[in-house]
């Protein structure tokens, strides 16, 4: 090993493909359902919203752990966008998921975040295949309280194309002053975005964990029936 090659210590070290990371699949060979949370942590989320979101993430983990099969099968990652898109929690089974403590600040580079999210999802599927892990259709769950401050049309196109192909299921959720019209341009037409009732993040994540439990238990040919979300509002 060349000791002179330095990795800047503020940059995550990318493990070599097929590296030690793959041990997670030896410990847990269960099929995976990837659930990528793409969360708006822009400045406007400061205060009660970010606190409620953090509480929601912790509930998400607790709820998933209450189901032994879901704890092994639901593969969670968290990507935030405030400054630039940042993967604050890389994919791991729910049992090993450490809910991050998110802080608010910055703008809303939603386009870049979606772009990053979709490429990470593609890479994760490739990792499953390399390691012989069966998988369910992944979920991308985007939550925002604003509107994109960057170019988002290209990302929106990828979301719609991916959803059409069945590459993933995309869910868009608006909070507070979120621009629902722009979110509707991004979310697939068959699953329009929904509006969170107040700051009911906890209810949202309980519902999400329930839905992931349903998916992770689903067997061939079963129509997956999700509970209606009880945390949305029809108010624009």
């Amino acid at each position, binding site marked *: 090993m060349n000791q002179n090659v330095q990795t800047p210590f503020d940059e995550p070290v990318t493990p070599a493909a097929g590296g030690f990371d793959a041990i997670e699949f030896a410990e847990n060979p*269960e099929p995976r359902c990837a659930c990528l949370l793409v969360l708006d942590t822009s400045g406007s989320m400061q205060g009660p919203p970010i606190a409620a979101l953090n509480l929601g993430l912790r509930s998400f983990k607790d709820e998933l752990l209450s189901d032994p099969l879901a704890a092994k099968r639901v593969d969670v990652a968290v990507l935030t966008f405030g400054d630039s898109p940042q993967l604050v929690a890389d994919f791991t089974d729910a049992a090993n998921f450490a809910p991050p403590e998110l802080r608010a600040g910055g703008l809303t580079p939603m386009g870049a975040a979606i772009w990053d999210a979709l490429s990470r999802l593609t890479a994760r599927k490739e990792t499953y295949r390399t390691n012989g*892990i069966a*998988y369910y259709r992944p979920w991308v769950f985007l939550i925002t309280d604003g509107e994109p401050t960057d170019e988002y049309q290209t990302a929106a196109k990828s979301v719609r194309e991916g959803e059409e192909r069945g590459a993933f299921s995309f869910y868009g959720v608006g909070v507070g002053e979120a621009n629902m019209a722009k979110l509707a341009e991004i979310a697939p037409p068959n699953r329009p975005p929904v509006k969170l009732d107040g700051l009911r993040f906890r209810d949202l994540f309980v519902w999400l964990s329930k839905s992931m439990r349903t998916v992770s238990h689903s*067997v*061939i*040919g079963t*129509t997956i029936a999700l509970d209606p979300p009880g945390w949305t509002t029809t108010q624009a």
Partner: protein
Amino acid sequence: MSWRYVSAIAVGTSHLRTDMPCQDRVACAVVPCPDGADVFVGVVSDGAGSAAFAERGAATVCERLPVLVRDALARSSDLDAVSDDDVRTWFLRLRDELRTQAGDTDAELREFSATVLLAVASDHQTLCAAVGDGAVVVRAGAGAPFEVALWPEGGEYVNQTYFLTDDAVAERVAIRRFDGVTDVIAFSDGLQQLALERATRTAFEPFFAPLVRTVRESAAPPDELARSLAAYLDSDAVNQRTDDDKALLVGCRTADAA
């Protein structure tokens, strides 16, 4: 040459929780051919969880497919005389049968959705055919490795597959032929996690070796062996790895008379 075989099904814990019946079915038969040879026929079918008459679909496959195979062997046990087109015709006739039942029941054909795994083994040749998931594993003699004859087919995601009732069924029938097979195992997707190593696309030897050894060496009468296999399929060890229905058959060619 003769065949010793055993088969069993067991309801999945998820089906018990939701009051759903076991939708897997299995059938084994030995067809005596006019040329004196015995041909083993094994069928596994997994009815789709979302289909209203899934178990009837699976049961029909297991009742009718051995009859279609027997009729095809009415003159000779030579499996080379059975073309791939003949095999596809069996699947299409099965689908017609389901369509008739659907018509009689005033239901859609897809309400009878089921997968099909078929293994036909004469003294020298073995023919495997399938639509959908589950798998067939074969071995050519003691000491030889267990080989996955037909790998589960179904698409990208683990909770989707192909069914006999699909429009494109004729194109989706996977067919493979082997020589010198002595042991045949077929099982529904509920057992895939225990039996197959996806990373290497191989059969998990510790799962198969005891099955074949037991069928070959056990002195127990067939029905007792079947009960013991059903008990294994319903054991905690299995149910901790899968909550789905399970169907399994094992056929072993032996030198002695059965």
